[in-house]
């Protein structure tokens, strides 16, 4: 009874969270576009883009929470999937520039003209179509995660070993993308975007639409993750997290479960990256830096892993703090704060903000239940 009650209340919390997100998706563009600039309620465009960035980070954090919080896979390379999605979108945006580039080449992006490339490399074909690019946003991170996960999970690479290998993966990709002859703009990456789907990426309307799209993507992500973790499949994931060997002995194919959820998570990260790039206006290899991926993990830890909403809240909070600190005179202290955050969260707040709140809540309930007639503690039968 307690548990079904809890599950219901969680569901209610989840719905409320989605409603809040939906309200933000509508309210922020309205405040930006419809409220006159003179009004105190007007939201400047730069702030909206900033919030859009946070939302993309939140989606990345959600993807990490799905695998770390529910399946115990600590990926220190999720920034790689994020960046790959971003690059796929960046390639589409580069092709949309057309002849408006500095060298006015209708086919080749500026950096290829600059490097004397005679023609477009094969892997750039098709990126002038949005649908193809959108497919690649899902496919490239997904396939990489599938291949990587297939190798890693099948040979039972777990725990810190897996974390380090994922870190090496993103490090290797970073080194590769820094090279000019990789064909992705080298050091400078892809930038100078003009249009997306025929709309100017700099225009306020486009930015508002991108923001709304990011929030919608985040909502879809939350719904998918919630559906997964609430299902029987999700229960197996949690079982794997808590006792992998025992789950295997019970007859579950642990590696298939892990592989599915890892690939899905990579696709979500890819979508986050794809929405991030047009709002920020640039994608370069430093997005692959291992430090970025680890930072994303701390967003989840701050918000509370295994809570989904916590990942979103943690990403927004930490990034807001980062913006606040790095844009002022406090900039030199940001790394001290971030470092302290890593230590403090792991030592003092292992459940994260949302996890701790929920823990208090459930403790209060169980105290109340203890004073009431004996609760029904029998586990729910598997549905």
């Amino acid at each position, binding site marked *: 009874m307690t548990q079904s009650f809890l599950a219901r209340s969680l569901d209610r919390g989840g719905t409320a969270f989605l409603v809040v997100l939906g309200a933000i998706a509508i309210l922020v563009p309205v405040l930006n576009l419809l409220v006159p600039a003179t009004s105190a309620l007007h939201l400047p465009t730069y702030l909206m883009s900033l919030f859009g960035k946070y939302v993309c980070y939140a989606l990345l954090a959600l993807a990490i929470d799905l695998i*770390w919080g529910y399946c115990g896979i*600590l990926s*220190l390379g999720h920034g790689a999937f994020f960046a790959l999605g971003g690059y796929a979108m960046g390639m589409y945006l580069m092709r949309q520039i057309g002849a408006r580039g500095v060298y006015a080449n209708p086919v080749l992006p500026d950096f290829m003209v600059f490097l004397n490339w005679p023609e477009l490399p094969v892997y750039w074909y098709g990126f002038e179509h949005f649908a193809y690019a959108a497919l690649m946003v899902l496919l490239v991170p997904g396939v990489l995660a599938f291949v*990587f996960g297939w*190798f*890693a999970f*099948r*040979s*039972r*690479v777990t*725990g*810190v*070993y897996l*974390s*380090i*290998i994922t*870190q*090496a*993966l993103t*490090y*290797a990709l970073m*080194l*590769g993308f*820094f*090279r000019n002859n990789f064909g992705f703009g080298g050091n400078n990456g892809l930038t100078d975007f003009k249009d997306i789907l025929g709309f100017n990426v700099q225009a306020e309307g486009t930015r508002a639409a991108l923001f709304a799209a990011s929030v919608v993507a985040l909502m879809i992500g939350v719904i998918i993750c919630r559906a997964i973790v609430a299902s029987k499949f999700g229960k197996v994931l949690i079982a794997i997290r808590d006792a992998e*060997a025992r789950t295997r002995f019970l007859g579950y194919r642990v590696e298939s479960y892990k592989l599915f959820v890892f690939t899905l998570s990579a696709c979500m990260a890819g979508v986050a990256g794809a929405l991030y790039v047009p709002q920020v206006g640039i994608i370069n290899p430093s997005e692959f830096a*291992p430090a970025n991926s*680890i930072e994303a*993990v*701390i967003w989840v*830890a701050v918000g509370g892993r295994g809570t989904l909403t916590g990942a979103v809240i943690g990403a927004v909070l930490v990034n807001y703090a980062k913006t606040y600190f790095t844009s002022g005179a406090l900039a*030199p202290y940001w*790394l*001290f704060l*971030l*470092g*302290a*955050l*890593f*230590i403090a*969260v*792991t*030592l003092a707040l*292992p459940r994260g903000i949302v996890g701790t709140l929920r823990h208090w809540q459930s403790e209060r309930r169980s105290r109340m239940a203890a004073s009431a007639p004996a609760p029904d503690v029998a586990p729910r039968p598997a549905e």
Partner: protein
Amino acid sequence: MRHWADRLVGCLLVCMLLLAALPAHAAGFADALQHFVADDFSETEAGIAEVAASGDRMAAPVLSALQDGRLLFSAADKTVFMKDESDRLLDAATGRPVAGAGPADLDTVRINNRLRRALDGALGALTLLAPDAGRRFDAAQAVFKSRDENVLPTLDRAIDKETNSRVKAAMLQARAAITLGSADATEADQTAAVAVIRARGDQDALNLLSGLPADSPPAVQRAARDAVASIQHGLAMWDGVQNIWYGLSLGSVLLLAAIGLAITFGVMGVINMAHGEMVMIGAYVTFVVQEIIRTRNPALFDYSLAIAVPLAFLVAGGIGIVIERTIIRFLYGRPLETLLATWGLSLILQQAVRTGFGPNNREVGAPSWMSGAFELGQITITYNRLWIICFSLVVFVALIALLRFTRLGLEMRAVTQNRAMAAAMGIATARIDALTFGLGSGVAGLAGVALSQIDNVSPNLGQGYIIDSFMVVVFGGVGNLWGTLVGALSLGIANKFLEPFAGAVLGKIAILVLIILFIQKRPRGLFALRGRAVEA
């Protein structure tokens, strides 16, 4: 002494040129100088040849003055002057300072590229007889490259006189190079010359032999082709040796950086992401030690590293123990959380050093016994790399000995193998954990001392090595230092062998991919622990 030697050389030259007597020789030099007054390139060239042949002790200074544009002439007085380094005006014929400003119409003797080449050859020939063996060797090398036939008589004289075998070999090679290029050398001479150059076996020899004129006799061409093939073969072998050397050097650095990590990971199952920062701290300790020595007692500079080594160990080790006591011990059994907390710690340490010492690279000097290099066959071995390899091996052996023969080592091994059982036998596992972490961090500090000699000492120093060190540990397996040794050296060598084919970056990527694939085969590394410890 020098003066005397110059005189002797001069006399010898005189004899060889069958010039009658000393006054005549002096007159010959003065006559030769007159060529420079004409302000005409071909006259100047003749002048260079005659001055070089005159054997006067002023010949070399005059030619180098000409080379540097310090040789002046007065067309009206038909006299030649030179300026020395401090801009004093000297009489070129005698080398004595000239009183006053000299003639009014002084002008520089102009040279062009052709003359520069002639000058290089002539000066090379003159220094062939220099008293210093190193200069004679350099001169022989210069002649080998210039292949100037005019040098031949001087070269032959020098070969006759030469007693140093290394210099003599270089001279013979230079002579062979000239013979090969000379139109009137016999076929047999040229074939013999090819053999001499073949014995030299380096890139210059290869260039010379493969650039042989097409009209040389067929027998010479055949010999040259054989020689080219054999030199290429030899060079490929030396290339391999060089790659192994570079690989060993990189591997020893990796070993130093990774071995502390392997100890903490093996004993405690803890991944210390702040390990790279311990390396960085070791490097900064070296910097501070050197700064203090520079300001207080510069004479001790050669001992700075010897002082820094124990200090770096103590400082980094002490910081490690503090970290273990304040952070890590609360996180046992939660390796992923430990990873995050130590990452946060690494950010703090980096930023602290950046605040304290500034974000820029710091200058750490090399003591005299670590600078310089020597040649081994076709490769150059620098002393600092050699010392670092020795140092890493010493550290490795010391750690093995510590693990094997001391009480602490015994207890550490016991905790690695079975923590619960070790605790039941009365080992204070918490104390062992703290000491292990301190030891691992201390070794990282030692690595920092070594790295300060070959890398930039900056707050980011550690970050460059952390992923590579993890790769070494993952590759070599934990709980066994031999695995770390083999892992570090094989990764270092593999890296250097892949570099020529794939470039530095792609080589690194290839290594990472290979390790990811390797993990498929042996998920616990090369030297994995067996038994129950694996699942712990």
